């Protein structure tokens, strides 16, 4: 066999391996390493999308190996060498044209069928008995409401494993996009429109999500967390959320902090049930129980909470949350109060 042909065979093998390398690499990575991965499905919706993706990747790798391989073979085999004859002036070949028009069409048909099926399956009405959640996007945080429980919370979504979550999606200002990759695809929130999506989580755990449509200066800071709990944990969470805010002992630090909350200006934007009625910012009734603050931007520790309240625009550019004037003592008291709101 002539040397160029053997070389071409080796090259084809290498191209094949190279093409498969991505898949191999992916199989080696875990959700712990890549918490926001879209390739580690944890819900029915995400699994259907992953199935489609795997089908697409199969065809992509196959086509890549064949076509890129043909190119590489051609480039090597037909490179000019001394003594090589003049090439034959071939102008075309109808049979080839037909063949390489039909072959891609068939592959596309093979992909189109599961695509359309999945489109209709994932956009059908949510199964009965689903947990209703209303999502409202704001610049730059997420509001979550559970109408059947009359709960309003922000940035951290709790759902029970195994029960379908039916999400309605709206916005208070500009277009955002709601995306928990482990649960499935994203869906935009659009003014004057309510979108819907649903998914059934199949594992407990903590899953990060993020806004996926440019929505202004702090688009990168509009994050969120999903907590998939066991049914018992979820029920307990609901009970705690429906309860009123923790009432601080009189003359305690927390009581002084509540005073700060009520007089420093916070009430203009925030609701603490029974205490204040602001709607521009997240509901803080149980803010102490969240694991993160400022749309999952910082851990919810007294230190971070203090830094956040002390100068919100410095920590989240463009935020409407004002840098309210207060002394360091007042700030510490306020942080203690908010931390107590579990």
């Amino acid at each position: 066999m002539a040397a160029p042909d053997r070389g071409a065979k080796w090259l084809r093998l290498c191209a094949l391996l190279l093409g498969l390398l991505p898949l191999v690499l992916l199989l080696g990575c875990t959700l712990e390493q890549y918490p926001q991965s879209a390739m580690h499905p944890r819900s029915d919706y995400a699994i259907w999308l992953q199935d489609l993706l795997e089908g697409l990747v199969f065809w992509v790798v196959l086509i890549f190996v064949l076509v890129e391989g043909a190119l590489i073979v051609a480039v090597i085999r037909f490179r000019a060498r001394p003594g090589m004859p003049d090439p034959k002036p071939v102008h075309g070949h109808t049979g080839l044209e037909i063949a390489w028009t039909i072959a891609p069409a068939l592959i596309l048909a093979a992909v189109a069928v599961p695509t359309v099926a999945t489109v209709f399956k994932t956009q059908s009405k949510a199964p009965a008995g689903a947990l209703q959640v209303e999502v409202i996007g704001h610049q730059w945080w997420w509001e979550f409401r559970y109408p059947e429980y009359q709960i309003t919370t922000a940035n951290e979504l709790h759902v029970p494993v195994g029960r379908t979550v039916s999400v309605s999606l709206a916005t208070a200002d500009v277009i955002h996009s709601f995306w928990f990759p482990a649960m499935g695809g994203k869906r935009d929130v659009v003014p004057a429109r309510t979108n819907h999506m649903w998914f059934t989580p199949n594992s407990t755990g903590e899953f990060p999500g993020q806004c996926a449509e440019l929505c202004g200066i702090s688009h990168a800071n509009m994050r969120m967390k999903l907590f998939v709990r066991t049914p018992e944990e979820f029920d307990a969470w609901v009970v705690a959320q429906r309860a009123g805010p923790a009432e601080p002992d009189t003359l305690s630090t927390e009581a002084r902090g509540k005073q700060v909350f009520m007089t420093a200006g916070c009430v203009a934007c925030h609701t603490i049930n029974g205490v204040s009625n602001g709607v521009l910012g997240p509901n803080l009734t149980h803010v102490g129980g969240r694991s993160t603050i400022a749309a999952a931007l910082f851990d919810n520790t007294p230190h971070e909470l203090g830094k956040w309240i002390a100068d919100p625009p410095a920590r989240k550019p463009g935020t409407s949350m004002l840098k309210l004037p207060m002394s360091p003592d007042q700030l510490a008291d306020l942080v203690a109060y908010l931390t107590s709101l579990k």
Partner: protein
Amino acid sequence: MATTTAPIAAVHEQSYSPSGLWSWITTVDHKRIGVLYGVTAFIFFLIGGLEAVLMRIQLMRPGNEFVSPDFFNQLFTMHGTTMIFLGVMPLSASFFNFVVPLQIGARDVAFPRLNAFSYWVFLLGGIFLNLSFFLGGAPDVGWFGYSNLTSKQYSPGHGVDFWAVGLQILGVASLAAAFNFIVTIINMRAPGMKLMRMPVFTWMTLVTSFLMILAFPVITIALVFLLFDRFTGTNFFMASAGADPVLWQHLFWLFGHPEVYILILPAMGIISEVLPTFSRKPLFGYPVVVYSGIFIGFMGWGVWSHHMFSVGLGPIADSFFALTTMLIAIPTGVKIFNWIATIWGGRIEFKTAMLFAIGFISMFIMGGLSGFMHASPPSDLQQSDTYFIVAHIHYVLFGGSIMGIFAGIYYWFPKITGRYLGEGLGKAHFWLTLVTMNVTFFPMHFVGLLGMPRRVYTYAPNMGFNEMNLMSTVGAFGLAFATLIFVANVLRSRTHGAPAPADPWGAPTLEFAIASPPPVYNFGSLPTVHGLDPLWSKEAKDIIQQVNTVKGHIHMPPSSYWPAVSALGMTMLMSGIVFGWWVGIPGLVLMLVGFYSWSFEPCH
């Protein structure tokens, strides 16, 4: 392939004034206008590249504070807008200008002054757009400017106004150029140059020009609505009045999808010229390559909502656009197969132009395949607005359009300047570009599918995005260095490059029959063409002699400054929307004076 020895005394005095700034400002010669477009566009390309490098520095590690979030948003907005409207499109236009009249056997384009006008509007529009950086901030709403983020309420500064008005100005430049090339290609072909004997590059120019004249009016209207909303309080995108912000998306992408074919078809045309030349055999399946280009042009109108799969248009709309998008992959694939079949059985010479052409095919296959993955809406919902899309667009736009354009530059540089670009530096440029392009953009496929959205100035440190972002940044620096090698090559070759004959490569098309650089009148006598690839036909010798023999009086259009004056006036008029009537009114007067004088300017 002797250079011409015929005298140029027959040429009109006024047009033959080759030196000095004034000669460039008043030129109506398509070859000079092509050079103006090319140099200007390349400078904007470098600016766009600088914007990219700044972004990559910011993203090289999480929580970085190299640029502010606000400036980062301006950077990606201007990077996209600059690369598309001030980079790739005018680079393509520089080839339309220089090459098309030569390929069809014409002395110039149909409307030389309109041609000059479109260049000056492009230059002034690009300057206007970039002035925003210094006058309150560049636009920061993305190159696609979705409403209602672009409303006065959510974008109170002037950045969006600069963006909208700037695009309107640039739209005029594109339309003017497109009209010119449609008429030139349809009406000014040499005897015997039937449509199906035209080089593929000229064909792609024709299809692209039709796409431009039909797509730009749609974005013009969208921008009119946006400007009316921002300046006069109309309700085109005001949800509170019952309007639908998604209307913007429909109008924008009705323009935007044909726009991406405007960006790729010229590069596809270029490599359809380069591959046969350096394979020493004709293009495989010429009619199929032409028809698939036309087919793509038509079908490109039917896929726009594949940019909107996450908006919630409903399963029927999503399925329809999925199917049309998959369909358009067929003619695209067919072209790729025909290019490979062109090389197959050839005798390949690896000049730098050929390396870039092969690189185009290789990278475009990858970009096309990731595009195929987006075509499925449910799968796309995990990909859209992530770095997976950023990977796709850069493989098709950088690996595709830009590499195709570099192929064209290496291929036609000898014709334009009379000197070869250095092959040593050229090969270094190519290999470094190919490698660093992949280092920059390949990781983005992964980081996108692993959850990193687009248009984010930073990211959380524990998501696993860190190493891949660092790799992309390193690649970006490499890409910048590779581009500097190219710049050095151009600067050196202009004065020290090896002199090039009329036909430096043994190519088949008409532009290689005449001297390098061509005389101002292009052809001494217009050639008579008998088929495809005239210089590879048995009539080649006759054609070469014919075109290098001056017969009779050659009338070339005289230079004129009215196109530049009109362009300045029109730009001032439109920029008056942002700057005020004290710029707008003088602009209107200047423009009317310019157009009037242009209309009544004598031809002799």
